[in-house]
């Protein structure tokens, strides 16, 4: 029973932070926290992968440290770096001073000249932070292998200072947009969570929670329309982020229901690709009919 309460607590925490979940997500977050295993989240863009880490951090009342990955990201930018230029200046200034060599070198390699990059930050917190490694698929494969080492040892070796071991192992969230396939080794080290586009009910709940003053009918129509749009063959399928943008936009225009004209005028909020927009405009009548049918059925 106690354990069940814990599971329920996480659901509540996520929900009070405004994150609408389903049982798979709650279970994965719960287990990754319990087993202290990194959580690898994959899914299309804009379904709230990054959001999970943010919500986890505020639910645990701890810091969120974010490492945004990009092609060419290397250890210097991920772990730590000495501030060489400042060190050099310091040396020049210290030439005249009477301090001993030992003292000078101790000063030279002190915290003052150490630039802490996200990994080093993550292992030196006084409380387990949430460490978000965002869009890991953008970094190249060399970085992935380096990441494996960090995730298994949680220590950083700085030759001049020594090895720094994590006092509090961070909660790790790794996200990927599947731009490229991640290595099997990394997958195995993590718990895997696939988040897909939400179904109608979940999306409606999200819209209502994030845009509280939206008209009920409008929210319903927006979500139905989004469900239909995602059935199309699109270059860039809109995610929840787009739904919310659209809901905000329409709510602030004081629109209380959708019609074809409004959709056509505001389509740019939802679709971000020229061809997608054109294609959707062409099939708008058909789409709109489907929305009408689906709202009558329910």
């Amino acid at each position, binding site marked *: 029973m106690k354990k069940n309460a814990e599971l329920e607590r996480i659901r509540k925490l996520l929900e009070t932070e405004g994150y609408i979940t389903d049982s798979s997500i709650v279970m994965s977050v719960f287990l990754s926290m319990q087993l202290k295993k990194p959580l690898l989240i994959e899914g299309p863009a804009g379904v709230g992968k990054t959001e999970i880490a943010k919500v986890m951090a505020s639910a645990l009342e701890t810091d969120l440290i974010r490492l945004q990955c990009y092609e060419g990201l290397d250890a210097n930018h991920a772990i730590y770096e000495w501030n060489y230029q400042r*060190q050099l200046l310091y040396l020049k200034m210290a030439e005249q001073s009477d301090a001993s060599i030992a003292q000078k070198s101790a000063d030279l390699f002190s915290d003052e000249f150490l630039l802490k990059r996200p990994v080093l930050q993550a292992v030196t917190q006084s409380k387990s932070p949430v460490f978000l490694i965002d869009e890991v698929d953008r970094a190249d494969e060399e970085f992935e292998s380096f990441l494996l080492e960090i995730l298994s040892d949680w220590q950083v070796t700085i030759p001049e200072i020594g090895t720094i071991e994590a006092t509090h192992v961070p909660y790790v969230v790794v996200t990927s947009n599947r731009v490229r396939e991640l290595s099997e080794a990394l997958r195995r080290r993590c718990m895997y969570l696939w988040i897909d586009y939400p179904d109608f009910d979940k999306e409606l709940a999200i819209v209502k929670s994030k845009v509280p003053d939206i008209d009920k009918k409008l929210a319903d129509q927006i979500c139905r329309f989004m469900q239909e749009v995602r059935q199309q063959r699109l270059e860039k399928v809109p995610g929840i982020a787009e739904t919310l943008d659209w809901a905000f936009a329409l709510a602030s225009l004081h629109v209380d229901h959708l019609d074809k004209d409004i959709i056509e005028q505001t389509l740019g909020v939802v679709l971000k690709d020229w061809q997608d927009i054109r294609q959707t405009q062409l099939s708008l009548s058909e789409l709109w009919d489907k929305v009408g049918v689906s709202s009558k059925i329910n």
Partner: protein
Amino acid sequence: MSDTQNLITRQTELSANIVALCRFLRQKGFIAGAREEVDALQALSVVPFETRHQMMLALKAVLPKSRIEVETFEGLYQEYWDNLKKAVDSKMTEKPEESSDDKSKDSDPRKKPPSLNHLKNWLQGKTAVEEEEVASYSDFEVLTRRNFSTFSEEEMHHVMRIIRLVAKTLMNRQTRRYEAARSRGQFDVRRTVRNNMRKGGEMFELAWRRRKIQRLKMVLLCDVSKSMDLYSRFLIQFIYGFQALSNQVDTFVFSTLLHRVTDKLRGRKIGPALERLAEDIPDWSGGTRIGASLVRFMDDFGNQKLDRRTIVIILSDGWDTGDIEVLADAMRRIRQKSARIIWLNPLAGSAEFEPKVRGMQAALPYIDVFAPCHNIESLQRLAGHLVTARKRKRIDLRENMIESR
């Protein structure tokens, strides 16, 4: 509560079941090794599995490691328990079903607990069936075998030289990473300062850096259907030349089916290699289903073979007898996953050629470089163009296109 209790009375050890489940999943292509077994057991020890559903959720969070695995997990999980139930029931009524099953004789009784015998047999029977299915060929495949003649040494040598040039240009790419260089390239401030620190901060040694060159991989997809017959002599040289060049090249041929021929071409003299090919690929000179073959390639090899440093070269005339939508879709998927798509079309060599073939037209929007390859000159021209264009840029090397510019 009652569900779990049931499980426990039936199979006294839950851990044995988890191990068996993992074994079952492994058969189905999951990566469920010892590490995953441990994870699963740990997960179950912290999760309040009061209902069967919660236990499933917990295992679902731990065991699958990719999207496909996530999606198939629930079905497989159900399948496992159903069959376990059957196995246990048959054991309870003491009517061992496996005696009638002739496949049980090759199973090893030492390896598994007796109650799982049925499950094991079922598993083995299942895989045997799957293997049979894979080994059989479809009816519409044309089972013709061609005898490839050997090529003259001199001709081969020339082609190889050009191919090497093409491949080299293609496969070396500058990256955003830097590597240390000796006195050329850019001045590396960071390393210079670092290296000279021990000399009291005077700059004695200068450090340099340059962009790292990255070796790209290559996937070759060759159409060997009837319509390509005229060019097959040249085609084979081409494939062989690429394959012999580096072990970063993977070659597939297709007409109605897709075959991976990398290993058959590797490390052999061209003569015997070609004989092997003609023997092993029954649908050589068959019909063409480019779209279906490309889909097959993406499904079976896409994730392993393609990434953003892989160049895909497709050699085909674009005569597709299958569904054009399928082809367009496959091309889109390949484009998403690869660095570049180069389509070499032997027909594009003639000045009158227009890509009016439906297949070619469907594929064209996704192609980065479209070039003719009917003879050595056209290849040479391709090499020349690739040297100047490194980025992902549309290039069309048809003669009429160049004149019109």
